[in-house]
């Protein structure tokens, strides 16, 4: 006997994500998720962002790692609204973890919520968390071929960031390859180059964040 079902396997996750999205919208919070490989500079970019934003925006942070609260400890000096989520082995954050994390933050005091996903360019892309925008973070020392190897984030991201451009003189990173591959996947892919450590290009990034927060 065959029982027809036709149901999304991630239905439960998607339902919680939709609930998160509603809660955040009602609280007036614009939410982004940062997705990038381990060590691409997600936490560093957030540290620089918090230092440079000043009092313009009130930012909350949820940071996901398999283990340790090191990223939350790095961010805590720059914002009173930081919570760590440990996934206990899972390669991605899911909507329920965000729902629990949101309870630790004063949502009505926030303009912007930034989620740092588990370091991984692949797995987090398929799990909706309730964010308004996904940011794909690449970095120079990872190599110029990373967009070609990760098409889904290229197609789905609201913004792609190329970090660590201060290292371009020292590694064999060919911008023609990087942009050429992007062009054959998504010609109008929005890309921003920056260095989270030297601060080069950070102003563009801050403007982008401010604009997003305004529109939301």
């Amino acid at each position, binding site marked *: 006997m065959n029982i*027809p*079902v036709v*149901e*999304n396997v991630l239905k*439960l996750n998607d339902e919680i994500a939709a609930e998160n999205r509603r809660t955040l919208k009602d609280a007036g919070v614009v939410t982004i998720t940062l997705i990038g490989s381990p060590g691409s500079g997600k936490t560093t970019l957030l540290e620089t962002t918090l230092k440079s934003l000043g009092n313009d925006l009130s930012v909350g942070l949820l940071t996901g790692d398999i283990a340790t609260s090191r990223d939350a400890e790095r961010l805590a000096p720059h914002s009173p609204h930081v919570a760590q989520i440990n996934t206990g082995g899972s390669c991605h954050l899911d909507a329920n973890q965000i729902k629990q994390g949101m309870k630790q933050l004063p949502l009505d005091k926030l303009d912007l919520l930034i989620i740092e996903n588990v370091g991984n360019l692949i797995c987090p892309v398929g799990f909706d968390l309730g964010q308004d925008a996904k940011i794909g973070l690449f970095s120079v020392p990872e190599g110029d071929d990373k967009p070609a190897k990760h098409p889904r984030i290229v*197609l789905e991201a609201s913004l792609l960031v190329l970090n660590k451009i201060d290292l371009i003189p020292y590694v064999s990173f060919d911008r023609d390859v990087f942009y050429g591959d992007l062009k054959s996947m998504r010609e109008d892919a929005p890309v921003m180059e920056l260095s989270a450590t030297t601060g080069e290009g950070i102003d563009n990034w801050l403007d982008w964040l401010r604009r997003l927060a305004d529109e939301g």
Partner: protein
Amino acid sequence: MHETAIAASLLEQVRQYIAPEAVLQCVHLQIGRMEHLEETVFQAAWSAMTNDTPFADSTLTIEWVPILVRCRKCQGEYTPEDRAIMICPKCDSAYPEILQGSGIILKSLDIDIPGE
């Protein structure tokens, strides 16, 4: 691995449809080619997940759905030969809108009711 998380989600979902007296034989899934899922890893995750459950002997069959793209420039539809090369064969540009090829869908379940 996210295959485990997806298998866990599937198991919860399957439980809702299977009466205690029924024996689950086969789970039919439809998975888009855009999804980051590896068939052997997913099969292994399902076996591990169901090991201590009444569904331990069930099998998974996966129907892979090809990617279908609409070009936002010329409106032509095409199936890219590679996920990383989305260039439209008609106008040679890459402004893809994914029409089909994402999603993980539980289509149906084959069950047996002993004694019927």
